[in-house]
């Protein structure tokens, strides 16, 4: 498997070259190009032996993650190598994260794709944490060994965390397992915190790595949504 990140500027995308027998998984709407020998299967996130009910629950969970209900799986069907291109919706970078010695936890909307060897698990954040973090209710945990692709709105930066860090809601992409977070207020008191416009933030404790995005998609959505006529559905 070979992953070429095509642009690190405003419009990042990735082309994944798969050898026979290799598998790659992506968020269902992410594929924009593929060689014609690529077999594309749409599956919901389900754990083994959980059956339809498990699939349904997993689907509902990932819907709350701001992620498509389903994931797509790609493999070639003719014993030849093939390629599949993945692109996010927003302007921004795409990054490759190697999962192995570290397990990564990704905010729902930042997950773009991962190699078939990576195990994905959706983690429900709870209403309080998930509802207020601005990152969605569900995070995607990527463990095992392989490559994980994430997308960011704007520029993606890597931060080494020693002891802790505070991240504004809406800017989180992914963090290493071992870091714990709580939702809290940015400033000293609730009023100054709300007045500052920062509102709620994610307070991380521990040591590890975090990827953050320079812009918060929710703010663009809010700004555009307010300018558009109301919807009826």
């Amino acid at each position, binding site marked *: 498997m070979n992953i070429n990140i095509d642009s690190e500027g405003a*419009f990042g995308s990735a082309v994944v070259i798969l050898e026979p027998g290799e598998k790659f998984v992506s968020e269902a*709407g992410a*594929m924009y*190009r593929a060689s*014609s020998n690529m077999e594309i299967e749409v599956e919901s996130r389900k754990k083994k032996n959980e059956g339809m009910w498990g699939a349904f629950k997993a689907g509902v969970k990932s819907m709350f993650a701001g992620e498509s209900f389903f994931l*797509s799986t790609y493999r070639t069907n003719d014993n030849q190598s093939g390629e599949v*291109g993945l692109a996010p919706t927003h302007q921004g970078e795409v990054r490759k994260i190697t999962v192995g010695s570290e397990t990564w936890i990704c905010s729902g909307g930042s997950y773009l794709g991962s190699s078939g060897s990576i195990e994905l698990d959706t983690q429900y954040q709870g209403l309080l944490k998930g509802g207020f973090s601005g990152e969605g209710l569900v995070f995607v945990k990527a463990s095992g060994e392989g490559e994980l692709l994430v997308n960011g709105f704007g520029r993606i930066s890597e931060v080494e965390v020693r002891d802790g860090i505070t991240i504004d809601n809406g800017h989180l992409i992914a963090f290493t397992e071992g870091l714990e977070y709580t939702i809290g207020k940015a400033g000293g008191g609730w009023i100054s915190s709300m007045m500052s416009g920062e509102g709620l933030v994610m307070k991380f404790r521990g040591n590890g790595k975090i990827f953050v995005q320079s812009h918060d998609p929710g703010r663009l*959505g809010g700004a555009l949504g307010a300018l*558009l006529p*109301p919807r009826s559905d």
Partner: protein
Amino acid sequence: MKYDIISAPSYALLEMTLNEGESVIVEPGSMAWMDTTVKPKTEMKGGLFSGLKRRMGGESFFLNTYTAEGGSGKIGIAPGYSGDIVVKELNNETIYMERGAYLCHLGNIETSVSWEGFKGAFAEGMLGLRVSGTGLLFFGSYGDVQEVEVNGSYIVDNGYAVAWESSLDYSIERSGRKIRSFLFGDQLICKYRGNGKLWIQTRSPRNLAAWVHPFRMVKSKSD
């Protein structure tokens, strides 16, 4: 004529210097700035019927011709989307294009609507744009543009193909085999066949619009 594409690939803009008497035909709305020596002229090229056909192809009814008069002149031309610009020299040949990708041209090039039939109803729209002749053609993308040399066949998701050579043909197909795939619009894909060049953009305006949609207020019942 001399040109330079600046700020590519993310915010590409075409900067063109016309010698006296030279002209460029530009998609209305795409002229960003120009010298005072550049004179615009708006016409319904090819008459009413051609204008109507262009209109149906997602392009404008009128064509704007910009000519340098009384000296050379500079003109800046920008597409509606932020993204890249592709230059293609046409030598008595035809390429097809997604509605809205056309930016400008020099020389003897005709743009007209092409009937994509019902297969097109699921793709970019019922009608595409047919561009043929001899000259220099510029078209734009949303996001980066990637050139793919198709030998045999290639798959592009609905909404990402920008332009393709006339030696390629395409059809709309379903990608997944699972029954539930009908739930997803993106499971309709364009399959290109033949040998030729295909240009693909890395972002989809439709996907962005679909993402913004839930941020709209919900209409209250009393409205």
